């Protein structure tokens, strides 16, 4: 194959990620994170620290929205494909283990002073690392690609549950980890019931949009205010709307689809603008990228034992693109633990950009043939 043809394939793979309806040349992360950095306090200063504080509400809304989407996807796919769900969870667990284990060891070795337990920072990095976003598979396309795409959808469930515990550990004002996670689920279910009572009986689409937006803000806002994870609350609500009688899940999905793009863009720009270079962040960045790649490859290899239609060497490679969930969780962590959170956001945001760029090089072998 010519050099041109060799370069063309990964480019096409990236172009398939036609996120945001804009058909970007690469994934949105690689465009909007640098844009956020350049607009933020460390760049042109257009997004000032005060503006960033106001954008907290956007982060909370985006966390709840992403949680709902994951909950809806999980509730639909997990019971239908238990083996894939198990594979995805195994892959996620291994990645969290590799990254969190290595980070705990390194943080202990470096002796960096932290304002919260090193294990909380390490677990946060692990949770951020385990989320992945394989390129969306085309209808009737490559089955291996399709399986990888489903694993990527399902591998966010475990990190979000663990993330609910981590937020409880990291936030001194919050209840202890398991109580914080239970609180997030309770907030999620309470709001979900409220929405379920309203969505199908709304007097027209505009009123329903108000209810959906209200539920979303209540999910994120109540969870965040109670010191719990908005992602977990959103996931619990999404899960409930799928299993509850009626069509709440479809109505929510339809209305949230309009919000998703702007919220994700704002989330990524906020993450970019929140990047604050410091020594700990640089060290964490190196560890994050290195051990995330290792974790994904090992986890993908192990998970392929449960997902028989995908080659062991390929699944991990498919799962390298990190998507936005990891970044969202890092921002959530920074909300409750600003000092260490700044370093984590630095590592995860820049790590996400690097991982997206690395997918240019790491393309499954059979797709090169």
């Amino acid at each position, binding site marked *: 194959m010519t050099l041109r043809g060799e370069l063309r394939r990964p480019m096409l793979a990236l172009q398939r990620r036609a996120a945001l309806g804009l058909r970007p040349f690469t994934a949105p992360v690689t465009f909007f994170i640098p844009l956020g950095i350049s607009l933020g306090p460390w760049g042109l200063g257009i997004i000032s620290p005060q503006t960033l504080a106001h954008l907290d*509400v956007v982060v909370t809304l985006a966390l709840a929205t992403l949680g709902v989407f994951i909950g809806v996807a999980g509730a639909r796919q997990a019971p239908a494909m238990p083996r894939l769900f198990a594979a995805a969870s195994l892959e996620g667990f291994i990645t969290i283990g590799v990254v969190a284990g290595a980070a705990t060891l390194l943080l202990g070795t470096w002796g960096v002073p932290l304002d919260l337990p090193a294990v909380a920072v390490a677990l946060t990095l692990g949770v951020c690392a385990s989320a992945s976003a394989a390129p969306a598979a085309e209808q009737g396309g490559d089955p291996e690609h399709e399986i990888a795409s489903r694993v990527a959808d399902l591998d966010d469930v475990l990190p979000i549950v663990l993330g609910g515990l981590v937020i409880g550990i990291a936030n001194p004002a919050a209840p202890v980890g398991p109580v914080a996670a239970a609180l997030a689920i309770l907030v999620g279910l309470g709001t979900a019931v409220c929405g379920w009572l309203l969505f199908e009986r709304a007097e027209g689409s505009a009123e329903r949009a108000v209810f959906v937006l209200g539920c979303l803000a209540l999910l994120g*806002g109540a969870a965040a205010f109670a010191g719990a994870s908005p992602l977990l609350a959103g996931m619990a609500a999404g899960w409930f709307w799928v299993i509850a009688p009626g069509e709440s899940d479809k109505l929510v999905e339809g209305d949230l689809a309009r919000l998703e793009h702007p919220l994700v863009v704002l989330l990524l720009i906020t993450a970019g603008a929140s990047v604050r270079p410091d020594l700990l962040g640089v060290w964490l960045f190196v560890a994050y990228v290195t051990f995330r790649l290792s974790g994904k490859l090992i986890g993908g290899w192990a998970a392929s034992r449960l997902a028989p239609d995908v080659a062991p060497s390929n699944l991990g490679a498919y799962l390298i693109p990190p998507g936005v969930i990891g970044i969202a969780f890092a921002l959530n962590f920074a909300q409750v633990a600003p000092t260490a959170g700044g370093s984590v956001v630095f590592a995860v945001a820049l790590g996400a950009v690097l991982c997206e760029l690395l997918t240019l090089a790491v393309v499954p072998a059979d797709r090169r043939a």
Partner: protein
Amino acid sequence: MRRPLALALAVALTWLVVSGPAGVGALRPTALAIGFALIAAALAGSLVKRFGLPRVTGYLLFGVVCGPYVGNIITTPMARELQLINGLAVVLIAFIAGLEINFARLRPQMHAMVRFGSITLLLLYAGLFVFIWLAWPWLGIAPALVGLQKLAAAGLLAAVVASFSPTVTIALIAESRASGPVSQMTLTLVILGDLILILLFALLMQLGRFAFGGSGDVGLFESVSWEIFGSFAFGAAAGGVFALYLRHVGRELTVALIAFCAVVATAGRTWHLEPLLAALAAGLVVENIAPPRGDMLKDAIERSALPVLVVFFAAAGASLQINALAVIGIVALAVSVVRLLLIRSATFAAGRYAGLPPALAGWVWMGLVSQAGVTLGLTLIIAGEFPTWGSQLQTLSVALIAIHELVGPVLFRSALVRAGEVGRMDTLGPPALEGVPLDTRDL
């Protein structure tokens, strides 16, 4: 049954979270306040609609009942966070108002409108000034003032008391899907009336500075001129850019509209412009110079306006200082009654002079009762400039706003119902109020 149950659930959930220990020292409660206000205020709006009241009244009542002065489910920090959306909401509402004023369509009635509006405003202001001058010793503001000082203070108070609320007017017209001469006349009168009152206010502030021994420099007049003409120029330019976006890009309009409102609101704060005027000018440019093709703008406004308005009015209700009524209730009630009588008689006289049908003037006055943001803004300027007596004036003004913000929407809705204009936007379509954008059956 489902709605009351959902309302109870939302209230219980928010109350539990707000009163729980974990909230202490946690994140800012912006999202929580917005979420609770959206669900509960929207439900309160649909509840009061069953009693023939406008939904806006439900949003306001929800804010009052749950706000820091009564139920305290929306705590003071939450109410403060809700105010963040005010800037955005005012811009959006003014932009919608601009979109509703089509000069080509108004031209045949322009002469009658100008005559009716100018006489109404003149009589209202003059009547209020005379009343305030005579009743000055009993208003509890600064009874000892005499001469030029009394003249300036009474003139300023008359301007404050005479001012209207474009936001409530627009929201009511949109909510009722109203179309026809009453809605058109009221809207035009409220907007132009407030513009003239703001100009008059600037002149009176100069007089006040001179009378109270200030420097008497032209700083305030210059700044008000900048606010008015600069705002119009900026708004026209912003409207032009937005019209170009509509015509040549036309994608992600909801996001573009919200971003446009955020830019105008931020520029207003940064450059000391008046966002309401800038957004009004932008709407006028879009409607009269570069109208969008098709319904894309209407659809975008339908999607974005309702949540913004619900939160805006809920926030307004939560910030209504009901305690001000307790302090100065009787005086405020007396001023309010006089204002109502003057509005009624001024519109009656102006209607006869302008040759309008008596029924029209008999309904339009009900749309001039509401007061909100403009009134409060003028009051705050006075309180900042003349702290010795401005704070007492502020207490009276806040009490008046509390009365008129609750009574005004009910009266205006009643006028629209009696004039048979409710819902005519759907049956008549474009000719009466082309392009009025909200699908307010859903408001």
